[in-house]
């Protein structure tokens, strides 16, 4: 019925061509192409042979080869560096969520002297860049052997895939810095989320005999999934992508993937095929996050300080 009624009302008019709509969608498609083209170029190049890469005429149709990927895994130490990157990325994220969650809980729910001072200091130092940390720390790091204080566990991968280290001083150090860089944003993001939880829930739990830690872990944290998701995405993004601090602090067993990638740019020439293969692999986890959590990322971006 609704359909016929609609037809009866509008049937007399001829539909106008919605040029405004069409041009808007055309503009969006062009923008999407401009945004995606460079990423696609990287991906396509990673599947080409050196001859095709050096060719002056870019080829869009070619026989894809995985030889660049094979090379970085078998001839270079891609796998141990992937493990190092993953440990540092996931470790920083876990520590950030836990410590930021606890701090946000205290700031949101408790009164105490120094509360404003701590909150504001956090916000004032949040823009300190990794480069400042790197150049002011590296001297002591080497002169005092700070990186060697924790030896970590050296391991050898089967089939000659290389050697790496787990949890040595350089990885723990990077986790410390990446956590510190992300804490201010995470604390005030989670602070906002905790403020939205009705305080009656906590009071009920306390009446039932729960202590504050139980309140935090059993009542608050389970309700903070959305906040944790945003915070985790941004922390992982910085820990996974960061270059300068990683370049300064890591050793030959613990490099992260951005440091590894940059080593294919040599004075005698750039190994574009291998470089693009590593680049493509670096980009995959953030791309997956984008597909599954674009909404949370936009939420985080518009919430304010997405820095690192």
């Amino acid at each position: 019925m609704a359909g016929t009624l609609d037809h009866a009302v509008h049937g007399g008019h001829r539909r106008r061509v919605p040029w405004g709509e069409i041009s808007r969608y055309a503009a969006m498609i062009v923008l999407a192409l401009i945004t995606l083209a460079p990423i696609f170029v990287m991906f396509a190049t990673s599947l080409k042979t050196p001859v095709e890469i050096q060719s002056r005429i870019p080829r869009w149709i070619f026989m894809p080869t995985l030889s660049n990927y094979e090379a970085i895994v078998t001839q270079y130490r891609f796998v141990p560096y992937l493990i190092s990157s993953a440990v540092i990325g996931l470790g920083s994220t876990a520590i950030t969520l836990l410590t930021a969650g606890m701090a946000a809980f205290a700031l949101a729910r408790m009164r105490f002297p120094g509360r404003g001072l701590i909150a504001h200091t956090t916000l004032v130092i949040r823009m300190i860049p990794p480069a400042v940390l790197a150049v002011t720390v590296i001297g002591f790091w080497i002169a005092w052997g700070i990186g060697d204080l924790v030896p970590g566990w050296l391991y050898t991968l089967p089939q000659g895939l290389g050697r790496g280290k787990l949890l040595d001083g350089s990885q723990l150090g990077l986790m410390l810095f990446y956590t510190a860089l992300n804490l201010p944003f995470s604390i005030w993001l989670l602070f906002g989320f905790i403020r939205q939880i009705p305080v009656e829930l906590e009071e009920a739990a306390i009446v039932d005999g729960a202590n504050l830690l139980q309140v935090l872990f059993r009542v608050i944290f389970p309700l903070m999934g959305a906040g944790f998701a945003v915070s985790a995405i941004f922390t992982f993004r910085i820990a996974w992508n960061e270059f300068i601090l990683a370049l300064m602090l890591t050793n030959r067993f613990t490099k992260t993937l951005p440091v590894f990638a940059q080593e294919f740019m040599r004075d005698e020439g750039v190994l574009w095929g291998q470089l693009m293969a590593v680049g493509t692999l670096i980009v995959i986890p953030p791309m997956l996050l984008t597909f599954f959590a674009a909404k949370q990322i936009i939420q985080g971006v518009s919430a304010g300080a997405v820095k690192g």
Partner: protein
Amino acid sequence: MRTNRFVPYLFLLPAVAILALGLLVPLYNAVMLSFYDWSFGQAWSARRFLGFDNFVRLVTDPGVWASVRTTFVFGFWVVTLEMLIGVGLALLLEKAVRGASFIRTVFVMPLMIAPVVVGLIWRYMLDARSGVVNYYLGQIGEAIPWLADPTLAMVSIVVSDVWQWTPFVFMIVLAGLQGLPGDVIEASYIDGANWWRMIWHIKLPMMRNILLIALLMRVIDVFRALEVIFIMTGGGPGRSTRVLSLHLFQTAYTSLDLGYAATIALLLSVILIVFSVVLLVLSNPLKEKADF
């Protein structure tokens, strides 16, 4: 909530300890090191006390002021282009984007990509001999030396930054537009405001604060950014793309001059802390939620 008076500090302790070790100790190092001459690889005991010499050197160093100037040139173009394009697109596409989550997903991508990767992609595409950009510009005979000419190198790093960060401005402005009170917009439509007047006299003035925040965050990022430039040009040719943060990094990493690098780090930190305070005045994330 009534608790023992030490309890809040216990909850804050892990975060405060990490912030102190990870951010405050490096800042303290910067202050202390700036009074010394100390090189990368030397023992700490080999340092030499200089008093304020590093600061005198900072103020009179043409290299620093050249890099500050480069930062301003880079920042001016980057921020202007990103604000104009980002705000323009958000206004034009506001309605269309609302339904299309696809385009938002696509726009998020450049923000998530590692700066090192952004740098290498653009360096490859702008390669004078085999880069796609020169090919499609039809300059195969006479290749444009994008990264080898001082002016073109600046253009190149501006282009890569605009590619990566315009979506950031776009998303912030879009969020602002969607947060505008619908009744005001409707009322002004009924009053006969046309599209242009609507934007110029109603939407943009109402979003003044959000636009300022987006602008300031881009300015802050200009001072922080160096990885993409490091990969694309390494600061060259000559000094033409050596922004302040890259100058800082190279003073430590290439010249191995840690005492002086710390002095530059201090200058950069002061600039960024001042910006942070201004940002805090514009939008205090704690203000509307609690009584700080």
